[in-house]
């Protein structure tokens, strides 16, 4: 495969969760997500209610993929942020390399505040993600990887 499998360890996951939790409070947001640009949800913090977070992540990624292609058509490389303003709830998406920081907020916050706080958190998230990517690349070379031990029976049992 072209890209390395991304492996997130407990400690890295906790660091991401901490950044998201702080951002959620600082923005007075309803919920904050970190999503991979291919649509995989990485982590979230906040009030999700009965929201389908997996579908939400996939649609956020699809949304950014479409707007990025639109950007290219008009000569821009990427739109670094995408905003959707609703009557009550709004969404702010910040593109960080191959990930998306998605903030869902309502009238308790403002777009200006969300932009400001997200910018700061983006740097932290970017450095954690870089570490994850580097570790993942090294781990791939590790012949003793846990996944090398998966047997045919393990896989078959999923479909029984």
């Amino acid at each position, binding site marked *: 495969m072209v890209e390395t499998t991304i492996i997130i360890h407990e400690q890295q996951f906790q660091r991401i969760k901490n950044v998201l939790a702080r951002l959620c409070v600082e923005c007075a947001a309803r919920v904050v997500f970190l999503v991979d640009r291919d649509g*995989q949800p990485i982590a979230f913090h906040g009030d999700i209610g009965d929201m389908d977070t997996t579908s939400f992540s996939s649609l956020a990624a699809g949304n950014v993929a479409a707007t990025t*292609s639109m950007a290219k058509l008009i000569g821009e490389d990427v739109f670094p942020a995408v905003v959707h303003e609703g009557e009550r709830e709004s969404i702010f998406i910040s593109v960080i390399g191959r990930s998306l920081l998605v903030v869902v907020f309502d009238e308790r916050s403002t777009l200006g505040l969300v932009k400001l706080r997200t910018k700061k958190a983006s740097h932290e998230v970017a450095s954690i993600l870089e570490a994850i990517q580097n570790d993942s690349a090294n781990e791939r070379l590790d012949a003793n990887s846990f996944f090398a031990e998966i047997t045919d029976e393990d896989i078959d049992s999923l479909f029984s």
Partner: protein
Amino acid sequence: MTFINYASREINCKIVYYGPGLCGKTTNLQYIYDSTAPQAKGKLISLATETDRTLFFDFMPLELGTVRGFKTRFHLYTVPGQVYYDASRKLILKGVDGVVFVADSQEERMDANIESLYNLEENLQTQGYDLLKIPYVLQLNKRDLPNVIPSDELTAELQRKGEPVFEATASQGVGVFDTLKAVAKQVLTELRKG
């Protein structure tokens, strides 16, 4: 690109259903959705036109169970089959772990199958993938219709690398889960290789 989260003990993989317009990609997903227990699936999201043609993609997350304590979740996507939605197809292939090519078995759709398969190879290459190297399954759909090309002829024409081939009638669920299992198995086997 597979995502492994040790904290939540989850493996997330992306599978894309590809093929010409009206070959039954969405029907495959719809059948999987309808026959899966509520706790194992998320919502089936369809970004479709008013006439129910896929505009951007269909999506559903599916949990298959656990491997060595890790929850395995497959993110199933379809692409829009119509020729002019090529930009959307390219986007959806990003980060793909496995592909199902759904061929329409009807005689008059043979050219469309070949064109779509060629388009798949080309779009995979654009994203840096090689069809010959990624987990891949061929499904011969609509076997219940009267004007179908014999399976061996279709296979001879469309099979690219000795990949598993399944006859299917997706509208009745025939071959749908066999296809999914085959591609999911290849994806997990690939993961094991590292």
